[in-house]
């Protein structure tokens, strides 16, 4: 009887095991995921909403749009110090840096073979401005016109020598205006409500770039195919597959890969113990700083400059940089080293506990205690909780009590926008790769400053003067110098305490050429990658 029971159970158990065995024994294709030397695989934890240049703002989307749509100018590799020709073979700036005239190449065609001209440029840039999405903000205050078929004039309401840099951003990619309009796109002032192209651009590339869209699945995979009629140098791979892969999975995958593979999210400590068979490229382009609220109604303590400077003196920037991994640097100012205008990393302030204690004592502040609010996330491989715990320990040495308040990202963003955080902490990347863009956000009375109660009225005159000097500079060289001076002043009188700069990183298999990290706004130029 027992035997009979066992037989039945054995059958039942076998039935359970069969599907597993079948699965495991099924055809096991090549695990390299390459599928041939003409396919490049890019592993990325997708931050992807759209492939419409007018709306693209997220990392994955920007990386893809950059190779689908050409821009007037661009950057080469990881060097963002100088814009290079792209659709525009040259450009001229007026003396007051308010008017820029771009001369277009005459040999550019879209992927469908039709010619690109100034009308397409004006349409695309006007559409970007009028859509009123996240990306629209970078061209606010600009207007666009065409004086002839090959000439585009960009006018800025204010002096802005960084206009060419802004026009290298993926969101300023040029669409085939005729086909776009046929499918519902509009560049009219009411484009925010009237544009009806919807998701058409997710599956159809109306650009002139080196790649076109082959398939689009925002949940798992985007496949690009080389544009056979591209006007420039042909890209290194016929096919690029971007696949959505979790960061831990990326690490295993790139370590095991036999070739033609890139991982985009292994920053920080995650890249520390990768095998020698991979190549790593990175540039410190993200800054991490504390923001202390200057509104006395929110906090009497953090709006006291003596307290700000005491906290600044208590923090061990070099120690915090170590927490980010081998490519991070201690911060000398708010501009990360990837960009012109950064202060020399060797000028980073050293921890000085005695100075911090003295500042507090001189100001009559005893047993100070403040709340530090931060988003409970891991960013670029680093848990932000680890960083603020170090801040808490550093401050404690100077007698400052920091209460850590982690929040879900949405709650944090809400509180930050409402200007309610006593001390805030989050990573900061530039809107476009020029240091002066920080002044637009962090000068007294600018958006980030207002979120921390730093109004013009509450600011020191030296900070206002230094900010105005940056804005008044009409050449990139003048801006670099003004930016450095601005940061020195900010280190004295602003409510921001820069601590460290972390690198964006590209990890690639050793057989690849041109797989370099770019702080330009697109992480990596997929068209530049080729097999050695």
């Amino acid at each position: 009887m027992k035997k009979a029971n066992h037989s039945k159970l054995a059958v039942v158990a076998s039935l359970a095991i069969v599907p597993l065995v079948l699965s495991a024994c099924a055809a096991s294709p090549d695990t390299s995921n390459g599928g041939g030397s003409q396919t490049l695989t890019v592993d990325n934890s997708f931050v992807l909403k759209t492939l419409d240049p007018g709306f693209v703002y997220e990392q994955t989307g920007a990386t893809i749009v950059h190779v689908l749509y050409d821009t007037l100018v661009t950057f080469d590799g990881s060097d963002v110090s100088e814009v290079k020709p792209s659709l525009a073979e040259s450009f001229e700036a007026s003396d007051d840096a308010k008017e820029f005239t771009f001369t277009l190449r005459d040999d550019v065609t879209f992927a469908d073979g039709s010619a690109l001209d100034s009308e397409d440029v004006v349409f695309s840039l006007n559409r970007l401005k009028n859509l009123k999405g996240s990306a629209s903000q970078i061209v606010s205050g600009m207007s666009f016109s065409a004086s002839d078929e090959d000439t585009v004039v960009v006018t800025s309401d204010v002096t802005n020598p960084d206009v060419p840099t802004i026009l290298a951003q993926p969101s300023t990619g040029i669409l085939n205006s005729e086909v776009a309009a046929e499918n519902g796109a509009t560049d009219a002032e009411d484009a925010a409500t009237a544009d009806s192209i919807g998701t058409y651009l997710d599956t159809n590339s109306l650009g002139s770039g080196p790649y076109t869209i082959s398939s689009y699945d925002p949940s798992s995979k985007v496949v690009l195919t080389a544009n056979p009629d591209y006007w420039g140098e042909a890209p290194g791979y016929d096919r690029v597959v971007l696949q959505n892969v979790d960061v831990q999975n990326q690490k295993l995958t790139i370590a095991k890969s036999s070739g033609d593979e890139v991982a985009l999210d292994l920053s920080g400590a995650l890249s520390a113990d990768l095998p020698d068979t991979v190549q790593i490229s990175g540039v410190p382009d993200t800054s991490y700083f504390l923001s202390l609220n200057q509104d006395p109604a929110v906090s009497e303590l953090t709006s006291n400059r003596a307290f700000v400077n005491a906290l600044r003196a208590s923090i061990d920037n070099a120690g915090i940089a170590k927490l980010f991994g081998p490519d991070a640097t201690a911060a000398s100012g708010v501009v990360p080293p990837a960009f012109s205008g950064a202060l020399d990393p060797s000028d980073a302030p050293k921890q000085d506990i005695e100075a911090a204690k003295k500042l507090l004592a001189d100001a009559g502040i005893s047993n100070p205690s403040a709340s530090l609010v931060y988003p409970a996330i891991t960013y670029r491989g680093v848990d932000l909780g680890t960083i603020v715990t170090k801040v808490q320990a550093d401050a404690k040495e100077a007698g400052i009590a920091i209460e850590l308040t982690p929040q879900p990202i949405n709650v944090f963003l809400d509180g930050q926008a409402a200007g309610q955080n006593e001390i805030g902490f989050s990573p900061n990347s530039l809107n476009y790769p020029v240091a002066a863009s920080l002044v637009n956000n962090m000068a007294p009375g600018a958006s980030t400053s207002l979120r921390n109660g730093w109004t013009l009225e509450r600011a020191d005159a030296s900070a206002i003067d230094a900010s105005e000097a940056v804005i008044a500079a009409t050449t990139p060289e003048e801006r670099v110098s003004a930016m450095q001076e601005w940061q020195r002043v900010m280190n004295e009188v602003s409510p921001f305490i820069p601590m460290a700069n972390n690198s964006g990183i590209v990890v690639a298999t050793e057989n690849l050429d041109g797989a370099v990290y770019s702080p330009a706004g697109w992480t990596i130029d997929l068209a530049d990658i080729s097999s050695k």
Partner: protein
Amino acid sequence: MPLLLKTIAKRLLTTVALLWGVTVVTFLLVSVVPGDPAAANLSQQAYDDPEIREAFRQKWGLDQPLIVQYGQYLWNILHGDLGVSQQTNRPVLEDLSRYIPATIEIAIPAMVIAIIVAVALGILSAMRKGSALDNGIRVLSLTGLSTPPFWLALVALYVFFYIFGWVPNGGRLSNMYDPPPTITGMYTIDALAAGQITVFWDAVWHLALPVGILAVLTISGLLRFVRSSMLEVLDSDYIRAAIAKGLPRRIVTWRHVFKAGLLPVLTVSALTMASLMGGAVLVEQVLSWPGLGQYAYKSALGLDLQAILGVTLFVAIVYTGINLIVDVLYTVIDPRIGAK
């Protein structure tokens, strides 16, 4: 009216009322949850520009009073429209039709394996109560229950992909293959329908790890329930009486204990299935499996209201639907339950 039809009609009415309740509660909850969708979806500078912020609110109807927003939402649902996702810019229904088949493709095989193994081991464990085999099975079950799913997924990925190379590194298909033409959205079935045998096997190969992990996680809970259910039946008077009457143990086990013990297991299995259909967020995240769990997770992070409401409604429909089926099955198996 026959008992079965009466039961179905009664349950359908309750289900509709329940789903309406779900829309009210989830809509209110989503509306009062801290966080501004505009802040979550716009860049800081764009958010600080009143014109852009207002354009966003207008576009997504957030400038309307709550009651108007709910009315619009309900009206759209009744017309088969779940709204448009702020994250993907696509209709939520279209998004769900992309993510749900991926979840079904791992949930059903995982559940089938789990039920077969859990029932077999649960019965064995109950029949051998107190033996070394029973203790071993219970320890295994406890270990499975106390293992965090994401940790199990990471370890499984490390061992079976990185060390042995038996399974792929995640996703639904290898990069050399394009998805088969969409019929059901399940790659294995669609590949077979299109006659793409290589793609079919590649899809099966990609199922191995997520299905295996979900099955292991499900087995642990289920087999404990099967065991206790069987023990309860074994301890009942009528079973003792049957054994005392000299009925062969094989007959007692398979005709009486098995049937009576499996009735509650049916309910638990159904609820477990519904839970799997809701998405195994962490497992899907680690294995880059583009299922409903990932969609729900990203929607919640981005405060994508329409998507959150869509996922919640779908999960509610699955739960109520499965409950309805279980109720009907109960009535079929034991009409006395339906009569109550």
